[in-house]
């Protein structure tokens, strides 16, 4: 999995280093979690829990230059767990409407491009695992092999999730346009 980028790697060995790391990576981690979770509150929870885990277990990280993918992995896993838990509760409460996606109220502060509303609705209907691999591969730039390591799944499974997710998004987008 890719090591930390061109920036000087941060070692989580002091409070100051923690602040540096969080400030450097918080927006990125929040974006990653946001692409897996249904809303910002869940995403913020996933990042918070993930960073707490990383901080608590910082001494055990073998290769400090892999801090970034290590934290990405923890945050992704937590985001998937939170999403699954949320989905589970929702499916128990509303089992009769499986085809109705949950669409958040439009945020008036940021105008949505025309295609994005339909894409957003379709994207939220993907499984958390599918959203995770789409986010890691297509947004974060990890290769399929790296994504497979981050989500603890075989490469074939990651490819399958990507293919199914894109097929579903494309199909639903085309249906909306018709």
């Amino acid at each position: 999995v890719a090591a930390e980028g061109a920036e000087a790697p941060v070692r989580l060995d002091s409070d100051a280093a923690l602040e540096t790391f969080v400030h450097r990576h918080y927006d990125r981690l929040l974006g990653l979690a946001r692409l897996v979770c249904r809303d910002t509150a869940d995403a913020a929870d996933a990042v918070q829990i993930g960073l707490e885990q990383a901080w608590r277990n910082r001494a055990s990280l073998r290769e400090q230059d892999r801090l970034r993918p290590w934290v990405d992995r923890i945050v992704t896993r937590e985001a998937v767990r939170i999403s699954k838990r949320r989905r589970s509760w929702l499916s128990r409460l509303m089992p009769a409407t499986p085809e109705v996606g949950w669409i958040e109220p439009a945020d008036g502060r940021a105008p949505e491009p025309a295609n994005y509303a339909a894409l957003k609705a379709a994207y939220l209907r993907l499984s958390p695992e599918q959203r995770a691999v789409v986010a890691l591969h297509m947004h974060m730039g990890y290769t399929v092999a790296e994504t497979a390591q981050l989500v603890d799944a075989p490469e074939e499974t990651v490819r399958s999730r990507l293919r199914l997710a894109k097929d579903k998004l494309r199909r639903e987008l085309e249906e909306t346009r018709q």
Partner: protein
Amino acid sequence: MTSQMREEPFDLLLGQFLDWQATDVADAPSADEVTDRIKRSAARPAIFGGRPRQLLWVAAALLLLALAGAVVGAAVLLRNEDRVQPSPTPTLATEPTLQLSPVIGWTGPVRSDATNMPLLPARSGPEGGRLWIDDADASTAWADLTEVQWRGTAGEQPYWFLGLASKPPITSDLAPVTVLEYGVVLETTGDGVPDYEFGLNTSTERLAGRAFRVWVTNLATGTTQEQLGPPYGYPVEFRHPDESEPDDPASWARTVMFTFLDSGPPGLGSGTRYYAWASHTENGDLVSWDYAPDNGWLGFRTLVNVTVLNLTASVARSEWASLSIKTEPNATCSIAIGYDRRSDRPGRREGRRLVRKRELVVAGRDGSDARHLPA
């Protein structure tokens, strides 16, 4: 229009959408707030994760439980009475019903005869790993290890995959008295004495949302790190069959996976030996168990000397090449066969090509073996 041509504009649109969606985080706390929370949480006991929000949830849950205690208790009793038992229905017994692990009975995850167990050769598995196929010999299919896979290379993150004879019931459907446990015992110092044990069990507190307990025990010091309920990941990360998705390979529905998100126990390396274990208890009584292997350790790598005794070269197409090697009995050898293409004809491309790479187990009693591979 090809599918590739259709793919590119869609990928571009999807990429732009993801970039936009990832920035839709206006209500999130600031980086400073998060940093402060992390520092504060580090000062609190880890059992609550140090998170005020979790503490509120715990307090709220306790309050609700106090108010509805009688109702919940009655519901639990009714649920137990009406429960549809998972299939196959566990046989309650204090002794195993089958002859298991014939060398020794259950002594817990840590076998009392571990010191004398041999290191067994495992076959090569997927992605350069090791694969051990175990007999189906336990009375409960969900506690019957039929396969143990290890993946990873020295210095990299190790993964253990424990294949079960059958998909275990969904944990939330298990009766409260039923506990299924899976784990691995490690020997890291080369003396044959188990050094670490890690595993997971279906927690008896699962009705309170604590579905699994995971732990790592240092057997030398007796200290245990554990996590009861989420957030999981430490001290050992796992994947339980409950987490299977429809597009996962079918075998994942009966596979328990372990790995370490950190560097794992000290001493974990290419010389580490391990075996897997599983157990099923009802009301605290052992019903079924399994070790895999039944009697022996597995290793990350078994390196032995291999001597190439004879290699016949310059073979023509459709003829046979003969390769003779000598090594220790039952060693797994990785053999790569290629050829040089050399042509006297002008214009023909020269080069080398790997035509076959395979692993084979040397079966000869004295360690010698000869295989014929098609040219």
